[in-house]
Protein backbone atom coordinates (compact mmCIF):
# COMPACT_ATOMS: atom_id res chain seq x y z
CA UNK A 1 0.00 0.00 0.00
CA UNK A 2 2.87 2.37 0.79
CA UNK A 3 4.34 1.71 -2.62
CA UNK A 4 1.07 2.40 -4.44
CA UNK A 5 0.55 5.62 -2.51
CA UNK A 6 4.10 6.79 -3.11
CA UNK A 7 3.86 6.11 -6.84
CA UNK A 8 0.47 7.85 -6.94
CA UNK A 9 1.83 10.96 -5.24
CA UNK A 10 4.86 10.95 -7.51
CA UNK A 11 2.84 10.67 -10.69
CA UNK A 12 0.43 13.40 -9.58
CA UNK A 13 3.24 15.80 -8.72
CA UNK A 14 5.14 15.06 -11.91
CA UNK A 15 2.05 15.62 -14.05
CA UNK A 16 1.22 18.75 -12.09
CA UNK A 17 4.65 20.27 -12.49
CA UNK A 18 4.66 19.48 -16.20
CA UNK A 19 1.28 21.16 -16.61
CA UNK A 20 2.31 24.22 -14.60
CA UNK A 21 5.25 24.72 -16.92
CA UNK A 22 2.88 25.01 -19.88
CA UNK A 23 2.13 28.55 -20.98
CA UNK A 24 -1.67 28.09 -21.03
CA UNK A 25 -3.70 29.24 -18.07
CA UNK A 26 -6.11 26.32 -18.01
CA UNK A 27 -3.26 23.82 -17.94
CA UNK A 28 -1.69 25.73 -15.07
CA UNK A 29 -4.85 25.53 -13.02
CA UNK A 30 -5.24 21.79 -13.65
CA UNK A 31 -1.57 21.32 -12.76
CA UNK A 32 -2.04 23.19 -9.49
CA UNK A 33 -5.08 21.05 -8.69
CA UNK A 34 -3.12 17.85 -9.31
CA UNK A 35 -0.34 19.04 -7.03
CA UNK A 36 -2.92 19.94 -4.40
CA UNK A 37 -4.27 16.36 -4.54
CA UNK A 38 -0.77 14.98 -4.23
CA UNK A 39 -0.04 17.20 -1.24
CA UNK A 40 -3.24 16.13 0.46
CA UNK A 41 -2.34 12.48 -0.01
CA UNK A 42 1.11 13.26 1.32
CA UNK A 43 -0.27 14.86 4.50
CA UNK A 44 -2.51 11.83 4.92
CA UNK A 45 0.44 9.47 4.55
CA UNK A 46 2.39 11.40 7.18
CA UNK A 47 0.02 10.02 9.84
CA UNK A 48 1.25 6.50 8.94
CA UNK A 49 -0.91 4.18 6.87
CA UNK A 50 -3.17 1.81 8.77
CA UNK A 51 -5.88 -0.44 7.43
CA UNK A 52 -9.02 -0.97 9.43
CA UNK A 53 -7.83 0.84 12.56
CA UNK A 54 -10.39 3.09 14.31
CA UNK A 55 -9.83 6.86 14.16
CA UNK A 56 -10.40 7.26 17.90
CA UNK A 57 -10.27 5.00 20.93
CA UNK A 58 -13.36 3.87 22.78
CA UNK A 59 -13.44 4.52 26.47
CA UNK A 60 -14.15 0.88 27.35
CA UNK A 61 -10.84 -0.48 26.15
CA UNK A 62 -7.45 0.14 27.65
CA UNK A 63 -5.75 3.05 25.88
CA UNK A 64 -3.02 1.92 23.51
CA UNK A 65 -1.78 4.45 21.01
CA UNK A 66 -0.67 1.70 18.64
CA UNK A 67 -4.26 0.57 18.25
CA UNK A 68 -5.70 3.52 16.36
CA UNK A 69 -5.10 5.73 13.38
CA UNK A 70 -3.75 9.20 14.11
CA UNK A 71 -6.76 11.49 13.53
CA UNK A 72 -4.76 14.74 13.30
CA UNK A 73 -3.55 14.35 9.68
CA UNK A 74 -7.12 13.67 8.61
CA UNK A 75 -8.24 16.89 10.24
CA UNK A 76 -5.33 18.71 8.57
CA UNK A 77 -6.18 17.23 5.18
CA UNK A 78 -9.77 18.35 5.56
CA UNK A 79 -8.68 21.93 6.19
CA UNK A 80 -6.13 21.82 3.40
CA UNK A 81 -8.70 20.50 0.92
CA UNK A 82 -11.16 23.26 1.78
CA UNK A 83 -8.53 25.97 1.46
CA UNK A 84 -6.93 24.73 -1.75
CA UNK A 85 -10.31 24.09 -3.33
CA UNK A 86 -11.53 27.59 -2.48
CA UNK A 87 -8.36 29.21 -3.76
CA UNK A 88 -8.45 27.17 -6.97
CA UNK A 89 -12.01 28.38 -7.53
CA UNK A 90 -10.84 31.95 -7.00
CA UNK A 91 -7.98 31.37 -9.41
CA UNK A 92 -10.47 30.10 -11.99
CA UNK A 93 -12.42 33.35 -11.73
CA UNK A 94 -9.26 35.38 -12.28
CA UNK A 95 -8.40 33.13 -15.21
CA UNK A 96 -11.76 33.83 -16.79
CA UNK A 97 -11.30 37.55 -16.21
CA UNK A 98 -7.86 37.43 -17.82
CA UNK A 99 -9.26 35.49 -20.75
CA UNK A 100 -11.99 38.09 -21.16
CA UNK A 101 -9.62 41.04 -20.96
CA UNK A 102 -6.78 39.79 -23.10
CA UNK A 103 -8.61 37.52 -25.49
CA UNK A 104 -6.01 34.78 -25.17
CA UNK A 105 -5.30 31.99 -22.75
CA UNK A 106 -1.56 32.56 -22.74
CA UNK A 107 -0.29 33.16 -19.20
CA UNK A 108 1.40 36.40 -20.24
CA UNK A 109 -1.77 37.72 -21.80
CA UNK A 110 -0.36 37.72 -25.31
CA UNK A 111 0.96 35.18 -27.73
CA UNK A 112 4.73 35.12 -28.11
CA UNK A 113 5.96 36.47 -31.45
CA UNK A 114 6.38 33.79 -34.05
Amino acid at each position, binding site marked *: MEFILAVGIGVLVASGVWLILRPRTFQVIIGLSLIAYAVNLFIFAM*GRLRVGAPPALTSTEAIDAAQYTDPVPQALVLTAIV*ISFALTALFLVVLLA*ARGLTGTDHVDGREPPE
Partner: protein
Amino acid sequence: MTGLADHLIILPIILPLVTAAAMLLFDERQRRLKAALSLLTLAGILAASVALLSGAASEGGEAPQVYALGNWAAPFGIVLVADRLSALMLVLSSTLGAGALFFALARWDGAGPRFHALFLLLLMGVNGAVLTGDLFNLFVFVELMLAASYGLVLHGSGEERVRAGLHYIAINLGASMLFLIGVSLIYGTAGTLNMADLAGRIPALSDDVRPLFELGCAVLAMAFLIKASTWPLGFWLPRTYAAASAPVAAMLAIMSKVGVYALIRLSLLLFGPAAGASAGFGDDWLLAAGLTTIAFGTVGALGARELTRAVGFSIMISSGTVLAALGLGDDRALAGALFYMAGSTLAAGALYLLAEILARDDIEIVEDASEQVFADEYQDPFDQETREEAIAIPLTVAVLGGAFLACTLTLAGLPPLAGFIGKLAMFIGALSSEGGGPGFAGWTTVALLTLSSLGVLICLARFGVAELWVPAEEPSPKVRPVEFAALAGLIGAVLLLTLFGGTVMGYMDQTVAGLGRPGEYISAVLGAEIR
Protein backbone atom coordinates in the same frame (compact mmCIF):
# COMPACT_ATOMS: atom_id res chain seq x y z
CA MET B 1 -11.78 34.03 32.14
CA THR B 2 -11.68 37.17 34.16
CA GLY B 3 -11.45 40.65 32.74
CA LEU B 4 -11.38 42.11 29.29
CA ALA B 5 -7.62 42.48 29.57
CA ASP B 6 -7.26 38.71 29.31
CA HIS B 7 -8.93 38.76 25.93
CA LEU B 8 -6.77 41.54 24.56
CA ILE B 9 -4.69 39.12 22.48
CA ILE B 10 -7.57 37.90 20.39
CA LEU B 11 -8.98 41.37 19.67
CA PRO B 12 -6.73 42.07 16.64
CA ILE B 13 -8.13 38.93 15.03
CA ILE B 14 -11.74 38.91 16.08
CA LEU B 15 -12.48 42.61 15.51
CA PRO B 16 -11.74 42.73 11.76
CA LEU B 17 -13.38 39.32 11.26
CA VAL B 18 -16.66 40.39 12.83
CA THR B 19 -16.72 43.77 11.10
CA ALA B 20 -15.83 42.30 7.72
CA ALA B 21 -18.62 39.75 8.08
CA ALA B 22 -21.07 42.45 9.13
CA MET B 23 -20.11 44.57 6.14
CA LEU B 24 -21.30 41.94 3.70
CA LEU B 25 -24.82 42.81 4.85
CA PHE B 26 -24.60 46.30 3.40
CA ASP B 27 -24.45 46.92 -0.30
CA GLU B 28 -22.00 49.13 -2.12
CA ARG B 29 -24.12 52.26 -1.90
CA GLN B 30 -23.61 52.61 1.84
CA ARG B 31 -19.98 53.52 1.48
CA ARG B 32 -19.86 56.13 4.18
CA LEU B 33 -21.18 53.65 6.71
CA LYS B 34 -18.60 51.10 5.63
CA ALA B 35 -15.81 53.64 5.81
CA ALA B 36 -16.87 54.61 9.31
CA LEU B 37 -17.02 50.96 10.39
CA SER B 38 -13.55 50.29 8.94
CA LEU B 39 -12.05 53.28 10.68
CA LEU B 40 -13.59 52.29 14.00
CA THR B 41 -12.33 48.74 13.66
CA LEU B 42 -8.87 49.90 12.74
CA ALA B 43 -8.82 52.26 15.71
CA GLY B 44 -9.76 49.30 17.90
CA ILE B 45 -7.02 47.09 16.46
CA LEU B 46 -4.47 49.86 16.80
CA ALA B 47 -5.45 50.45 20.42
CA ALA B 48 -5.23 46.72 21.22
CA SER B 49 -1.84 46.42 19.47
CA VAL B 50 -0.41 49.40 21.30
CA ALA B 51 -1.72 48.00 24.58
CA LEU B 52 -0.04 44.66 23.83
CA LEU B 53 3.17 46.45 22.85
CA SER B 54 3.29 48.54 26.00
CA GLY B 55 2.47 45.43 28.01
CA ALA B 56 5.33 43.55 26.38
CA ALA B 57 7.71 46.48 26.78
CA SER B 58 6.94 47.15 30.42
CA GLU B 59 7.18 43.59 31.62
CA GLY B 60 10.93 43.60 31.27
CA GLY B 61 12.17 40.05 31.39
CA GLU B 62 8.77 38.48 31.80
CA ALA B 63 7.36 35.71 29.68
CA PRO B 64 5.14 36.09 26.58
CA GLN B 65 1.40 36.25 27.08
CA VAL B 66 -0.48 33.13 26.05
CA TYR B 67 -4.14 32.80 25.11
CA ALA B 68 -5.58 29.30 24.82
CA LEU B 69 -8.33 29.18 22.20
CA GLY B 70 -11.34 27.28 23.45
CA ASN B 71 -9.53 26.77 26.76
CA TRP B 72 -7.64 23.74 25.53
CA ALA B 73 -4.19 23.27 27.02
CA ALA B 74 -1.22 23.98 24.79
CA PRO B 75 0.04 20.87 23.01
CA PHE B 76 -3.51 19.80 22.13
CA GLY B 77 -5.31 23.06 21.60
CA ILE B 78 -4.21 26.00 19.49
CA VAL B 79 -2.70 28.91 21.35
CA LEU B 80 -2.12 32.53 20.52
CA VAL B 81 1.15 33.91 21.82
CA ALA B 82 1.97 37.59 22.08
CA ASP B 83 5.60 38.35 22.77
CA ARG B 84 7.58 41.44 21.86
CA LEU B 85 8.13 40.45 18.24
CA SER B 86 4.42 39.74 17.68
CA ALA B 87 3.44 43.01 19.34
CA LEU B 88 5.91 44.89 17.15
CA MET B 89 4.46 43.31 13.99
CA LEU B 90 0.91 44.07 15.15
CA VAL B 91 1.64 47.74 15.68
CA LEU B 92 3.48 47.92 12.36
CA SER B 93 0.63 46.33 10.42
CA SER B 94 -2.09 48.42 12.02
CA THR B 95 -0.17 51.67 11.56
CA LEU B 96 0.44 50.90 7.91
CA GLY B 97 -3.18 49.75 7.62
CA ALA B 98 -4.43 53.04 9.03
CA GLY B 99 -2.39 55.00 6.49
CA ALA B 100 -3.54 52.87 3.58
CA LEU B 101 -7.17 53.01 4.66
CA PHE B 102 -7.17 56.80 5.01
CA PHE B 103 -5.66 57.09 1.56
CA ALA B 104 -8.23 54.70 0.12
CA LEU B 105 -11.11 56.72 1.56
CA ALA B 106 -10.38 59.53 -0.90
CA ARG B 107 -11.62 57.43 -3.79
CA TRP B 108 -9.99 54.04 -4.12
CA ASP B 109 -12.50 52.26 -1.91
CA GLY B 110 -15.10 52.89 -4.59
CA ALA B 111 -13.04 51.37 -7.38
CA GLY B 112 -14.40 47.90 -6.90
CA PRO B 113 -16.67 45.82 -4.74
CA ARG B 114 -16.08 44.91 -1.09
CA PHE B 115 -12.90 46.86 -0.60
CA HIS B 116 -13.40 47.38 3.11
CA ALA B 117 -14.29 43.77 3.90
CA LEU B 118 -11.26 42.45 1.99
CA PHE B 119 -9.00 45.03 3.57
CA LEU B 120 -10.07 44.05 7.08
CA LEU B 121 -9.71 40.36 6.30
CA LEU B 122 -6.17 41.00 5.07
CA LEU B 123 -5.39 42.72 8.36
CA MET B 124 -6.95 39.83 10.22
CA GLY B 125 -4.77 37.34 8.36
CA VAL B 126 -1.60 39.31 9.09
CA ASN B 127 -2.49 39.73 12.76
CA GLY B 128 -3.40 36.06 13.12
CA ALA B 129 -0.22 34.91 11.43
CA VAL B 130 1.99 36.87 13.80
CA LEU B 131 0.03 35.82 16.90
CA THR B 132 -0.47 32.11 16.39
CA GLY B 133 1.68 29.53 18.14
CA ASP B 134 0.75 26.58 15.94
CA LEU B 135 2.25 25.72 12.57
CA PHE B 136 -0.92 24.57 10.85
CA ASN B 137 -2.85 27.49 12.25
CA LEU B 138 -0.13 29.68 10.78
CA PHE B 139 -0.88 28.11 7.40
CA VAL B 140 -4.58 28.88 7.78
CA PHE B 141 -3.96 32.52 8.70
CA VAL B 142 -1.44 32.96 5.89
CA GLU B 143 -3.97 31.57 3.42
CA LEU B 144 -6.64 33.93 4.76
CA MET B 145 -4.25 36.80 4.30
CA LEU B 146 -3.38 35.66 0.78
CA ALA B 147 -7.00 35.08 -0.22
CA ALA B 148 -7.83 38.63 0.81
CA SER B 149 -4.76 39.94 -0.97
CA TYR B 150 -5.75 38.17 -4.21
CA GLY B 151 -8.99 40.12 -4.15
CA LEU B 152 -7.22 43.35 -3.30
CA VAL B 153 -4.55 43.04 -5.98
CA LEU B 154 -7.35 42.84 -8.53
CA HIS B 155 -9.09 45.81 -6.93
CA GLY B 156 -9.78 48.46 -9.53
CA SER B 157 -9.51 45.90 -12.34
CA GLY B 158 -7.76 46.60 -15.60
CA GLU B 159 -5.73 44.27 -17.75
CA GLU B 160 -2.37 44.81 -16.08
CA ARG B 161 -3.79 44.04 -12.63
CA VAL B 162 -5.50 40.88 -13.80
CA ARG B 163 -2.37 39.62 -15.52
CA ALA B 164 -0.12 40.40 -12.55
CA GLY B 165 -2.74 38.91 -10.24
CA LEU B 166 -2.78 35.71 -12.27
CA HIS B 167 0.95 35.24 -11.78
CA TYR B 168 0.75 36.26 -8.14
CA ILE B 169 -1.97 33.72 -7.36
CA ALA B 170 -0.21 30.90 -9.23
CA ILE B 171 3.07 31.52 -7.39
CA ASN B 172 1.43 31.74 -4.01
CA LEU B 173 -0.64 28.60 -4.58
CA GLY B 174 2.63 26.82 -5.35
CA ALA B 175 4.18 28.26 -2.19
CA SER B 176 1.18 27.08 -0.17
CA MET B 177 1.75 23.54 -1.42
CA LEU B 178 5.37 23.73 -0.23
CA PHE B 179 4.10 25.05 3.11
CA LEU B 180 1.80 22.04 3.49
CA ILE B 181 4.51 19.56 2.52
CA GLY B 182 6.87 21.11 5.06
CA VAL B 183 4.26 21.13 7.82
CA SER B 184 3.25 17.52 7.19
CA LEU B 185 6.88 16.35 7.14
CA ILE B 186 7.43 18.09 10.46
CA TYR B 187 4.31 16.49 11.90
CA GLY B 188 5.26 13.08 10.56
CA THR B 189 8.72 13.18 12.11
CA ALA B 190 8.29 15.18 15.31
CA GLY B 191 4.65 14.35 16.03
CA THR B 192 3.47 17.83 16.97
CA LEU B 193 2.53 21.11 15.33
CA ASN B 194 2.67 23.34 18.37
CA MET B 195 5.77 25.49 17.92
CA ALA B 196 6.76 25.43 21.59
CA ASP B 197 6.19 21.71 21.92
CA LEU B 198 8.14 21.17 18.72
CA ALA B 199 11.09 23.21 19.96
CA GLY B 200 11.19 21.06 23.08
CA ARG B 201 11.22 17.84 21.10
CA ILE B 202 13.98 18.65 18.60
CA PRO B 203 16.98 17.71 20.77
CA ALA B 204 15.46 14.27 21.40
CA LEU B 205 14.81 13.43 17.73
CA SER B 206 16.42 10.16 16.72
CA ASP B 207 19.13 10.27 14.08
CA ASP B 208 17.15 8.42 11.42
CA VAL B 209 14.29 10.93 11.38
CA ARG B 210 16.39 14.06 11.88
CA PRO B 211 17.35 14.48 8.20
CA LEU B 212 13.70 14.13 7.23
CA PHE B 213 12.71 16.66 9.88
CA GLU B 214 15.31 19.13 8.67
CA LEU B 215 14.14 18.56 5.12
CA GLY B 216 10.62 19.45 6.24
CA CYS B 217 11.90 22.65 7.85
CA ALA B 218 13.82 23.53 4.69
CA VAL B 219 10.74 23.03 2.50
CA LEU B 220 8.72 25.13 4.94
CA ALA B 221 11.38 27.82 4.80
CA MET B 222 11.11 27.83 0.99
CA ALA B 223 7.46 28.80 1.34
CA PHE B 224 8.37 31.69 3.64
CA LEU B 225 11.27 32.75 1.43
CA ILE B 226 8.86 33.01 -1.49
CA LYS B 227 6.55 35.17 0.65
CA ALA B 228 9.49 37.29 1.78
CA SER B 229 10.52 37.51 -1.89
CA THR B 230 14.16 36.60 -1.53
CA TRP B 231 16.31 36.03 -4.57
CA PRO B 232 15.72 33.98 -6.70
CA LEU B 233 12.15 33.45 -5.52
CA GLY B 234 11.04 37.06 -5.41
CA PHE B 235 10.88 38.04 -9.06
CA TRP B 236 7.09 38.39 -8.87
CA LEU B 237 7.02 41.04 -6.17
CA PRO B 238 7.92 44.32 -7.91
CA ARG B 239 5.60 43.65 -10.80
CA THR B 240 2.61 42.60 -8.68
CA TYR B 241 3.00 45.43 -6.21
CA ALA B 242 3.43 47.96 -9.00
CA ALA B 243 0.24 46.75 -10.64
CA ALA B 244 -1.85 46.93 -7.46
CA SER B 245 -3.70 50.12 -6.61
CA ALA B 246 -1.78 52.47 -4.33
CA PRO B 247 -3.41 51.80 -0.94
CA VAL B 248 -3.33 48.07 -1.60
CA ALA B 249 0.34 48.17 -2.55
CA ALA B 250 1.07 50.07 0.65
CA MET B 251 -0.69 47.36 2.61
CA LEU B 252 1.08 44.60 0.71
CA ALA B 253 4.37 46.01 1.97
CA ILE B 254 3.64 44.34 5.31
CA MET B 255 2.88 40.97 3.71
CA SER B 256 6.45 40.25 2.67
CA LYS B 257 7.40 41.01 6.27
CA VAL B 258 5.08 38.24 7.46
CA GLY B 259 7.35 35.76 5.67
CA VAL B 260 10.35 37.40 7.32
CA TYR B 261 8.59 37.25 10.69
CA ALA B 262 7.91 33.52 10.34
CA LEU B 263 11.55 32.87 9.44
CA ILE B 264 12.81 34.84 12.45
CA ARG B 265 10.35 33.18 14.79
CA LEU B 266 10.94 29.60 13.68
CA SER B 267 14.66 29.87 13.13
CA LEU B 268 15.37 31.28 16.58
CA LEU B 269 12.81 29.13 18.37
CA LEU B 270 13.58 25.78 16.77
CA PHE B 271 17.26 26.03 15.93
CA GLY B 272 18.71 27.97 18.84
CA PRO B 273 21.73 26.67 20.76
CA ALA B 274 19.47 24.32 22.72
CA ALA B 275 18.45 22.36 19.62
CA GLY B 276 21.19 19.75 19.97
CA ALA B 277 22.37 18.36 16.65
CA SER B 278 20.15 20.75 14.69
CA ALA B 279 21.43 23.95 16.32
CA GLY B 280 22.01 26.74 13.84
CA PHE B 281 20.34 24.81 11.02
CA GLY B 282 20.01 26.90 7.88
CA ASP B 283 21.79 30.00 9.19
CA ASP B 284 24.35 30.03 6.39
CA TRP B 285 21.61 29.67 3.81
CA LEU B 286 19.63 32.52 5.33
CA LEU B 287 22.73 34.70 5.27
CA ALA B 288 23.40 33.83 1.64
CA ALA B 289 19.76 34.36 0.69
CA GLY B 290 19.71 37.70 2.48
CA LEU B 291 22.91 38.95 0.87
CA THR B 292 21.97 37.92 -2.66
CA THR B 293 18.53 39.48 -2.16
CA ILE B 294 20.12 42.78 -1.14
CA ALA B 295 22.38 42.66 -4.20
CA PHE B 296 19.55 41.71 -6.56
CA GLY B 297 17.23 44.33 -5.07
CA THR B 298 19.85 47.06 -5.50
CA VAL B 299 20.53 46.20 -9.12
CA GLY B 300 16.79 45.92 -9.76
CA ALA B 301 16.09 49.30 -8.15
CA LEU B 302 18.81 50.94 -10.23
CA GLY B 303 17.32 49.47 -13.37
CA ALA B 304 13.69 50.25 -12.54
CA ARG B 305 11.98 52.70 -14.85
CA GLU B 306 8.90 53.31 -12.74
CA LEU B 307 8.84 54.56 -9.20
CA THR B 308 6.44 51.83 -8.05
CA ARG B 309 8.79 49.11 -9.27
CA ALA B 310 11.74 50.75 -7.55
CA VAL B 311 9.77 50.71 -4.29
CA GLY B 312 9.07 47.02 -4.83
CA PHE B 313 12.79 46.35 -5.12
CA SER B 314 13.47 48.37 -1.98
CA ILE B 315 10.96 46.15 -0.14
CA MET B 316 13.04 43.19 -1.29
CA ILE B 317 16.18 44.87 0.03
CA SER B 318 14.59 45.39 3.41
CA SER B 319 13.53 41.70 3.60
CA GLY B 320 17.03 40.68 2.59
CA THR B 321 18.57 42.92 5.24
CA VAL B 322 16.64 41.22 8.02
CA LEU B 323 17.45 37.75 6.72
CA ALA B 324 21.15 38.55 6.43
CA ALA B 325 21.17 39.81 10.01
CA LEU B 326 19.32 36.69 11.10
CA GLY B 327 21.87 34.52 9.33
CA LEU B 328 24.77 36.41 10.91
CA GLY B 329 23.49 35.31 14.29
CA ASP B 330 24.46 38.53 16.02
CA ASP B 331 21.92 40.00 18.44
CA ARG B 332 22.80 43.63 17.84
CA ALA B 333 22.67 43.20 14.07
CA LEU B 334 19.25 41.56 14.23
CA ALA B 335 17.92 44.27 16.53
CA GLY B 336 19.16 46.90 14.10
CA ALA B 337 17.63 45.01 11.19
CA LEU B 338 14.25 44.91 12.97
CA PHE B 339 14.50 48.66 13.48
CA TYR B 340 15.32 49.14 9.81
CA MET B 341 12.43 46.84 8.87
CA ALA B 342 9.94 48.92 10.86
CA GLY B 343 11.15 52.18 9.34
CA SER B 344 11.51 50.93 5.78
CA THR B 345 8.12 49.21 5.72
CA LEU B 346 6.37 52.42 6.74
CA ALA B 347 8.44 54.44 4.28
CA ALA B 348 7.80 52.02 1.42
CA GLY B 349 4.05 52.18 2.15
CA ALA B 350 4.18 55.97 2.11
CA LEU B 351 6.18 55.95 -1.11
CA TYR B 352 3.57 53.84 -2.89
CA LEU B 353 0.95 56.41 -1.91
CA LEU B 354 3.23 59.23 -3.07
CA ALA B 355 3.90 57.48 -6.36
CA GLU B 356 0.20 57.39 -7.10
CA ILE B 357 -0.18 61.10 -6.36
CA LEU B 358 2.81 61.99 -8.51
CA ALA B 359 1.66 59.83 -11.40
CA ARG B 360 -1.75 61.48 -11.49
CA ASP B 361 -1.03 64.21 -13.98
CA ASP B 362 1.25 62.04 -16.07
CA ILE B 363 -1.14 59.32 -17.09
CA GLU B 364 -4.09 59.48 -19.38
CA ILE B 365 -6.61 58.66 -16.77
CA VAL B 366 -7.54 55.02 -17.35
CA GLU B 367 -9.80 55.65 -20.25
CA ASP B 368 -9.72 52.62 -22.38
CA ALA B 369 -9.17 50.60 -19.21
CA SER B 370 -11.02 47.55 -20.26
CA GLU B 371 -14.26 46.00 -21.08
CA GLN B 372 -16.02 44.88 -18.01
CA VAL B 373 -15.89 41.21 -17.32
CA PHE B 374 -18.52 41.19 -14.63
CA ALA B 375 -20.94 43.89 -15.61
CA ASP B 376 -22.25 44.66 -12.14
CA GLU B 377 -18.97 44.74 -10.31
CA TYR B 378 -16.48 47.30 -11.51
CA GLN B 379 -16.62 51.03 -11.59
CA ASP B 380 -13.86 53.26 -12.68
CA PRO B 381 -12.48 55.15 -9.69
CA PHE B 382 -11.89 58.25 -11.74
CA ASP B 383 -15.32 58.31 -13.32
CA GLN B 384 -17.53 58.81 -10.36
CA GLU B 385 -18.42 62.10 -8.81
CA THR B 386 -15.88 63.26 -6.34
CA ARG B 387 -17.06 62.84 -2.82
CA GLU B 388 -14.79 65.48 -1.56
CA GLU B 389 -13.66 68.66 -3.22
CA ALA B 390 -10.09 68.37 -4.32
CA ILE B 391 -8.32 71.45 -3.11
CA ALA B 392 -5.07 72.81 -4.37
CA ILE B 393 -3.04 73.10 -1.22
CA PRO B 394 -0.36 75.75 -1.54
CA LEU B 395 3.14 74.44 -1.58
CA THR B 396 1.79 71.00 -2.48
CA VAL B 397 4.92 70.18 -4.33
CA ALA B 398 7.14 71.33 -1.49
CA VAL B 399 5.26 69.15 0.97
CA LEU B 400 5.30 66.19 -1.38
CA GLY B 401 8.99 66.76 -1.94
CA GLY B 402 9.59 66.76 1.79
CA ALA B 403 7.68 63.51 2.18
CA PHE B 404 9.61 62.00 -0.73
CA LEU B 405 12.87 63.04 0.87
CA ALA B 406 11.88 61.48 4.19
CA CYS B 407 10.98 58.19 2.48
CA THR B 408 14.20 58.18 0.47
CA LEU B 409 16.39 58.80 3.50
CA THR B 410 14.62 56.10 5.49
CA LEU B 411 14.79 53.49 2.74
CA ALA B 412 18.41 54.25 1.91
CA GLY B 413 19.28 54.26 5.59
CA LEU B 414 20.91 57.68 5.68
CA PRO B 415 21.00 60.10 8.61
CA PRO B 416 19.11 61.64 10.24
CA LEU B 417 16.07 59.39 9.86
CA ALA B 418 15.07 56.01 11.29
CA GLY B 419 16.71 53.85 8.64
CA PHE B 420 20.13 55.15 9.62
CA ILE B 421 19.75 54.14 13.27
CA GLY B 422 18.86 50.61 12.21
CA LYS B 423 21.70 50.34 9.73
CA LEU B 424 24.21 51.77 12.17
CA ALA B 425 23.19 49.20 14.77
CA MET B 426 23.55 46.51 12.09
CA PHE B 427 27.06 47.71 11.22
CA ILE B 428 28.07 47.68 14.88
CA GLY B 429 26.65 44.20 15.26
CA ALA B 430 28.16 42.82 12.09
CA LEU B 431 31.61 44.21 12.79
CA SER B 432 31.82 43.26 16.45
CA SER B 433 30.87 39.62 16.15
CA GLU B 434 32.39 37.69 19.02
CA GLY B 435 35.65 35.81 18.70
CA GLY B 436 38.23 38.32 17.54
CA GLY B 437 36.85 40.88 15.16
CA PRO B 438 34.52 40.65 12.24
CA GLY B 439 34.72 37.71 9.88
CA PHE B 440 34.26 37.54 6.15
CA ALA B 441 30.47 37.39 6.52
CA GLY B 442 30.42 40.53 8.65
CA TRP B 443 32.49 42.55 6.18
CA THR B 444 30.47 41.31 3.21
CA THR B 445 27.25 42.30 4.92
CA VAL B 446 28.53 45.77 5.73
CA ALA B 447 29.84 46.27 2.20
CA LEU B 448 26.59 45.14 0.59
CA LEU B 449 24.46 47.24 2.93
CA THR B 450 26.53 50.31 2.10
CA LEU B 451 26.29 49.67 -1.62
CA SER B 452 22.55 49.10 -1.39
CA SER B 453 22.16 52.41 0.48
CA LEU B 454 23.98 54.13 -2.33
CA GLY B 455 21.95 52.30 -4.97
CA VAL B 456 18.60 53.13 -3.39
CA LEU B 457 19.67 56.74 -2.90
CA ILE B 458 20.68 57.13 -6.56
CA CYS B 459 17.56 55.42 -7.81
CA LEU B 460 15.10 57.35 -5.64
CA ALA B 461 16.88 60.67 -6.13
CA ARG B 462 16.57 60.14 -9.87
CA PHE B 463 12.82 59.64 -9.59
CA GLY B 464 12.55 62.57 -7.20
CA VAL B 465 14.22 64.87 -9.68
CA ALA B 466 12.14 63.62 -12.57
CA GLU B 467 8.82 63.83 -10.73
CA LEU B 468 9.19 66.89 -8.54
CA TRP B 469 11.53 69.26 -10.36
CA VAL B 470 9.15 69.60 -13.24
CA PRO B 471 8.81 72.94 -15.02
CA ALA B 472 6.43 75.29 -13.29
CA GLU B 473 3.85 75.49 -16.07
CA GLU B 474 2.63 72.00 -15.34
CA PRO B 475 -0.06 72.07 -12.66
CA SER B 476 0.93 70.56 -9.37
CA PRO B 477 -0.95 67.38 -8.56
CA LYS B 478 -4.20 67.79 -6.68
CA VAL B 479 -4.18 66.07 -3.35
CA ARG B 480 -7.19 65.55 -1.13
CA PRO B 481 -7.02 66.30 2.60
CA VAL B 482 -7.48 62.65 3.64
CA GLU B 483 -4.65 61.65 1.36
CA PHE B 484 -2.46 64.24 3.00
CA ALA B 485 -3.54 62.91 6.37
CA ALA B 486 -2.55 59.38 5.33
CA LEU B 487 0.86 60.48 4.12
CA ALA B 488 1.42 62.68 7.15
CA GLY B 489 0.51 59.79 9.42
CA LEU B 490 2.99 57.40 7.85
CA ILE B 491 5.79 59.95 7.65
CA GLY B 492 4.94 61.01 11.20
CA ALA B 493 5.33 57.42 12.34
CA VAL B 494 8.78 57.30 10.73
CA LEU B 495 9.70 60.58 12.45
CA LEU B 496 8.48 59.22 15.78
CA LEU B 497 10.66 56.15 15.25
CA THR B 498 13.58 58.51 14.72
CA LEU B 499 12.84 60.79 17.66
CA PHE B 500 12.42 57.93 20.08
CA GLY B 501 15.23 55.99 18.45
CA GLY B 502 16.91 55.16 21.73
CA THR B 503 13.75 53.81 23.33
CA VAL B 504 12.75 51.84 20.25
CA MET B 505 16.25 50.45 19.86
CA GLY B 506 16.09 49.33 23.48
CA TYR B 507 12.82 47.58 22.73
CA MET B 508 14.37 45.85 19.71
CA ASP B 509 17.34 44.73 21.80
CA GLN B 510 14.94 43.29 24.36
CA THR B 511 12.99 41.60 21.57
CA VAL B 512 16.05 39.88 20.17
CA ALA B 513 17.29 38.95 23.65
CA GLY B 514 13.89 37.41 24.34
CA LEU B 515 14.01 35.48 21.08
CA GLY B 516 17.40 34.18 22.10
CA ARG B 517 15.85 32.53 25.16
CA PRO B 518 13.39 30.07 23.60
CA GLY B 519 13.09 28.33 26.97
CA GLU B 520 10.89 31.16 28.25
CA TYR B 521 8.60 30.93 25.26
CA ILE B 522 8.32 27.16 25.58
CA SER B 523 7.56 27.17 29.28
CA ALA B 524 5.11 30.07 28.88
CA VAL B 525 3.15 28.18 26.21
CA LEU B 526 3.26 24.73 27.72
CA GLY B 527 2.80 25.89 31.28
CA ALA B 528 -0.01 28.35 30.55
CA GLU B 529 -2.75 27.91 33.09
CA ILE B 530 -6.21 27.26 31.78
CA ARG B 531 -8.75 29.53 33.36
